[in-house]
């Protein structure tokens, strides 16, 4: 009788293709020699190798964390390739040197890199497996003092800057995956915005995993000097393989006095098929430090892909009057798992944080919000507002909320609101009765649910994110 809400099939993953290029990979497995080899391939200074080896030695003593609200097969860290690069050249001086196949790949992903087709007003760093293949608008940005380049290049060209800040927000022994990343990271983006400069364009990195057996360990470091501002976006896709690939990134943000960093992510790694075969393990450590007075760091994430998403973009609110924000949409369908949220650590006086989390769960998926709001003894007048909303589609999925609140100063004000709702048949019928198709009706309801997060995204990303959610849920109701 009732058609009801039930789970049908999913539209195919649009970015699941593999680019047919020759790849240079190093043998599988991890030991000190692997690390020396990666460091050598990157032509790194000695201190960098030392950093890696120190991290590796810590990692050896660490245990894989088990506290996530999910299970996954044990990862064999000796069965992963830690470095994969297009064979043609390990380092590109100009676009002409990049394999046309790779350029075509990015174009197919909607990220044209050639001069004629470049996205206006967005500078892009394109990372393909373990290397950055192109960075647009690099010279133009350099003129106003903004450094935007692959981190591997920054290590050679701006060693003092990198050395001063790398590992200063996420220490090498912070956690198991951060230690692993510190040992083997291959590439990622480096951003430096000098004092008083408002970066005139959005900076953006696009991560693409292409090789089946490789992990991607990227490293991003963003430094905003006094009174500066930068908006940075990242996007991610990967081919469709029936094996799981590990993506263990580390992102560190540093905001000094009156500086602001706005960091947005639209994550669409391959999620595995509807039975949960294949897909990316997205185990990432992202953390920002508001070191300066009245500094601000804002994380916005739209997580739609990956077999498992496990990350907590956090802010350490050290500077007096600093502000931390976290806006998140996490969508899980089929057998996908997300255990995500944030940590807001209030250290300085008059610090403020806002958390808005929207979890959408369909199929048999499991969606967890986990968050920590910690107010330390010296954080007079700290304020936090947290809102966690879960939306369920169908009756086989799960949503969980684990808010942790630790307050050690009685002048703090911490608010927490949480709701759980379902897309009801009555809502769908109402919209359909007005001539809107069922698919569009679901999309409309979801976009309404995510509105507070989407309005934090840059325009193009917001449009992209809306479309993405529509596609991901296509056929989930019927």
């Amino acid at each position, binding site marked *: 009788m009732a058609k009801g809400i039930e789970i049908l099939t999913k539209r195919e993953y649009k970015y699941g293709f593999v680019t047919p290029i020759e790849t240079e990979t190093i043998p599988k497995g991890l030991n000190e020699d692997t690390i020396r080899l990666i460091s050598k391939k990157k032509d790194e200074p000695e201190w960098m190798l030392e950093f890696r080896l120190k991290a590796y030695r810590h990692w050896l003593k660490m245990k894989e964390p088990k506290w996530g609200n999910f299970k996954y097969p044990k990862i064999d860290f000796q069965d992963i390739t830690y470095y994969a690069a297009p064979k043609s050249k390990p380092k590109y001086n100009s676009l002409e040197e990049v394999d046309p196949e790779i350029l075509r790949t990015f174009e197919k992903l909607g990220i044209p890199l050639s001069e004629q087709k470049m996205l206006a007003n967005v500078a892009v760093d394109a990372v393909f497996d373990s290397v950055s293949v192109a960075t647009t608008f690099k010279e133009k940005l350099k003129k106003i003092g903004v450094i935007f380049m692959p981190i591997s290049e920054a290590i050679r060209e701006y060693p003092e800057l990198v050395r001063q800040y790398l590992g200063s927000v996420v220490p090498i022994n912070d956690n198991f995956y951060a230690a692993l990343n510190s040992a083997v990271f291959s590439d990622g983006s480096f951003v430096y915005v000098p004092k008083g400069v408002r970066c005139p364009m959005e900076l953006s990195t696009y991560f693409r995993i292409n090789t089946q057996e490789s992990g991607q360990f990227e490293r991003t470091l963003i430094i905003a000097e006094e009174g500066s501002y930068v908006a940075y976006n990242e996007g991610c896709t990967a081919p469709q393989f029936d094996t799981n690939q590990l993506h263990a990134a580390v992102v560190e943000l540093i905001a000094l006095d009156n500086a602001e960093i706005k960091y947005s992510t639209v994550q669409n790694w391959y999620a595995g098929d509807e039975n949960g075969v294949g897909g990316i393990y997205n185990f990432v450590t992202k953390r920002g430090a508001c070191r300066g007075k009245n500094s601000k760091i804002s994380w916005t994430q739209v997580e739609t892909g990956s077999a498992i998403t496990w990350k907590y973009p956090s802010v350490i609110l050290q500077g007096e009057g600093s502000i931390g924000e976290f806006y998140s949409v996490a969508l899980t369908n089929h057998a996908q798992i997300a255990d995500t949220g944030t940590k807001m650590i209030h250290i300085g006086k008059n610090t403020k944080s806002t958390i808005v989390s929207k979890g959408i769960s369909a199929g048999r998926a499991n969606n967890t919000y986990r968050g920590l709001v910690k107010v330390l003894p010296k954080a007079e007048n700290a304020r936090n507002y947290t809102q966690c909303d879960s939306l369920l589609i169908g009756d086989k999925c799960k949503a969980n909320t684990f808010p942790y609140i630790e307050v050690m100063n009685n002048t703090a004000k911490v608010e927490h609101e949480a709701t759980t709702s379902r897309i009801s048949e009555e809502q769908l019928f109402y919209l359909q009765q007005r001539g809107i*198709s069922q698919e569009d009706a679901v999309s409309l309801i979801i976009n309404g649910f995510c509105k507070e997060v989407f309005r934090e995204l840059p325009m193009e990303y917001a449009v992209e994110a809306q479309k993405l959610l529509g596609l991901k849920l296509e056929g989930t109701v019927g």
Partner: protein
Amino acid sequence: MLLEIRNLHAGIDGREIIKGLNLSVEKGQIHAIMGPNGSGKSTLAKVLAGHPNYEVTEGEILYEGKNLLEMEPDERAREGIFMAFQYPVEIPGVSNSQFLRLAYNEKMKHLGREELDPIEFNELLKEKAKLVQMTSDFLKRSVNEGFSGGEKKRNEILQMAILEPKLAILDETDSGLDIDALRIVAEGVNKLRNSENAIILITHYQRLLNYIQPDFVHILADGKIIKSGTKELAIELEEKGYDWIKANSAHC
């Protein structure tokens, strides 16, 4: 003939509620369907609109000569069937104007007419909103969220005004309205009626019919139309009650 219902049997969860209903509606007509609680009035409205939980077990419904029962709810809507809900649904985070534009453009697309961009649509919306005395503030708010009962019903009529249906089914639109809101809603409906559309008014009370004059009145009891007449029938019903009609019609 715009709508032709023949020997309709329908229900929900395996329970038959409508038990052999016949009704013909022509363009330009207003039909009032009255009946006690549980007589099947709202079920009829939902079956016409295609609610997925209601099942038709026998009979047929022709809409403009086509088999209505084969059409999805959204298809029916685009073909010109509109139902004003007794309990309009809230859609958090979706603005009224965004929702209305989407609905409007879906219909325009279907008719092969030009869709309107937000600025053009806003003009249309402002014009139509006057009909039910709604301010632009309403249009920015989320669909029905935090609306009072009267505001929700006015919003339904506004949607009717935007979508210009051929067949509008008003399901107890008068319920829960105070006298001022009732007048606004009724005036809106009266302005929307013309020789090209038809309206089915579903109501429990005769009160609404003082404001919207029906051409025909049908009394529904236990899933069947037991008596049809003109608006005088409604007045008689008001005076004598449903029991009298039921007893009386049993002899016919």
